[in-house]
């Protein structure tokens, strides 16, 4: 009964910092309609709709109920999935599992955030930590864990600050070619190196924005795909690993650089990547994969993930950057979309990594298309080391 599955449609809205002119319903509807158009389908062809959203950011309880008006979930199956920053990718794995059962003709998932309606900053800083130990606003949210990771990269001489600045420039180059990115302005190394410190060595321009927007994805089993989709992005396999390290240490990426499990921020991404490579028979990811999308909440994360995905050796992220290997025209392009550092609508951002991988496979990347993509890989990360990874192919052998 299980079937092979493919992504057959992707739709994204524009991403901005504030969007007071439309409601959440309209925003979701926009993404859903674009995905359906992209797939050449109507809502009647979809059997289930899944929504993902961190409700406290917009203040809507049971938000999937209200949003049936725009998501197309009316009289269809579905449920709401939430796993923090990796919500979008959890929706994707839910879509993949549902499609693989063969019980549905096609399923659609929509990840979104309309953070201008609430305050995700406040949510993350003041109420995402433990009641009893939240003495110091949980250490001020995700920032501290990120600074630990950045310091670790510098200390073991994996990268220099200048190389990280170049990664940010690279992301902006790609974003300028991506009509769905939020921060599309090209920046220079000087811009980055001179931007104010937030928590040293993290600077303002290293960090992701808070964005408003939605992303929708349609997944179908082979039996449907074969009939209606000339250009599917086959999903060969998918894996989720969750770190599960707890407050009050801080679930937002954690803070321990040395533990028996290794550095805790790396746990999810590394384990998920390795598990997926093993299952798919990938021995040399840099050679065997054509394009990668990673969850780079900051440019420092991008460098860290290079190592954790094993596309370079330990402490070799800087070398990869020097070679220009991960640029759009490099031998292992990473984040042709620009990644999370240019667009972060929390419910959507993890889905956009998988969506972009599918876009690249289907040759729909426009100006940012990497030529000749046969194999794409996406790995996401979120609070408490939630990670999902998936491998996509142009054709199933």
């Amino acid at each position, binding site marked *: 009964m299980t079937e092979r599955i493919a992504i057959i449609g992707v739709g994204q809205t524009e991403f901005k910092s*504030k969007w*007071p*002119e439309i409601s959440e319903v309209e925003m979701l509807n926009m993404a859903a309609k674009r995905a359906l158009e992209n797939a050449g389908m109507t809502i009647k062809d979809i059997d289930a709709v899944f929504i993902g959203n961190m409700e406290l950011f917009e*203040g809507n309880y049971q938000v999937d109920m209200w949003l049936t008006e725009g998501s197309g979930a009316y009289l269809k199956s579905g449920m709401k999935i939430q796993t923090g920053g990796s919500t979008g990718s959890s929706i994707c794995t839910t879509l993949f599992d549902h499609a693989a059962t063969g019980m549905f003709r096609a399923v659609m998932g929509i990840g979104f955030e309309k953070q*201008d309606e609430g*305050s995700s*900053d*406040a949510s993350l*800083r*003041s109420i995402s930590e433990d*009641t*009893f*130990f939240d*003495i*110091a*606003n*949980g*250490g*001020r949210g995700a*920032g*501290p864990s990120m*600074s*630990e990771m950045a310091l670790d990269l510098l200390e073991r001489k994996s990268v220099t600050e200048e190389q990280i600045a170049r990664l940010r420039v690279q992301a902006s180059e790609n974003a300028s070619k991506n009509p769905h990115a939020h921060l599309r302005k090209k920046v220079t190394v000087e811009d980055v190196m001179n931007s*104010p*410190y*937030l*928590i*040293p060595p993290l600077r303002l321009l290293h960090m992701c924005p808070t964005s408003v927007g939605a992303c929708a994805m349609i997944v179908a089993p082979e039996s449907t795909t074969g009939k209606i989709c000339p250009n599917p992005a086959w999903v060969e396999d998918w894996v989720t690993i969750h770190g*599960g390290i*707890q407050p*009050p*240490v*801080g679930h937002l990426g954690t*803070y*321990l650089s*040395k*533990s*028996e499990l290794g550095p805790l921020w790396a746990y999810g991404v590394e384990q998920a990547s390795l598990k997926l490579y093993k299952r798919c028979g990938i021995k040399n990811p840099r050679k065997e994969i054509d394009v990668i999308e990673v969850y780079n909440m900051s440019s420092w994360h991008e460098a860290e993930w290079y190592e954790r995905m094993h596309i370079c050796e330990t402490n070799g992220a800087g070398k990869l950057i020097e070679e220009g290997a991960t640029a759009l025209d490099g031998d292992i392009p990473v984040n042709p979309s620009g990644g999370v550092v240019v667009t972060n609508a929390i419910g959507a951002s993890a889905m956009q990594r998988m969506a972009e991988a599918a876009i690249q496979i289907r040759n729909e990347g426009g100006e940012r298309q990497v030529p000749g993509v046969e194999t794409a890989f996406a790995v996401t990360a979120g609070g408490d080391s939630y990670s999902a990874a998936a491998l996509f192919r142009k054709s199933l052998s």
Partner: protein
Amino acid sequence: MEECQKETARITDPAYRGYAEASYGVARKKYEAEKKVYQKALDQGYIIIDSIVHLPFKESAGLRLSRFFNALRDESKILALRCPQCRRVTFPPRAVCGFCRVTIGEKEEEWFALGDTGTVTSIVLPTEREVDRATGRVVGEPNPCAFIRLDGGDEWTILVHYLEFMDIEKLKRGMRVKAVWRPREERRGRMSDIEYFVTV
């Protein structure tokens, strides 16, 4: 949070004050910019609905944390649990050892006290602060806070807490710190029964 309110006037180090003011400035700028965007939409005839959700909570600390907070308040002790199987320390006390998936905290021999001294493993500087949407007030504390590995624990033992005001240059990972306890009559059986940590 009210017991942790510190007056901005207490900031004496000029560089420090610069930090705090800069972060306050950034927060205010964001708030003002946001108001402008909304005003533009309102001027164009769009409706924006304000609402606040007030949800009061009464959370049970439960068996283990009640014992923990009582010991904090009454005996100035910071308690932790040692797993009988793997010997790892679980701090703060919880019902299960995350590694072994066995129940902990029911047997007396699993409980022990950590020291109230420790080593700083990570520091947070008081930088970007949040502005309360409804009132425009800046929230958050200007103190640095730290992740402190309390003595007697293992690599999994971390407490998040405030540090005293000090020169930014002096804030270093690896610093040794000691808890400053509130006077007995001010304690409530909360983590704030320790006011902050000072360097030793």
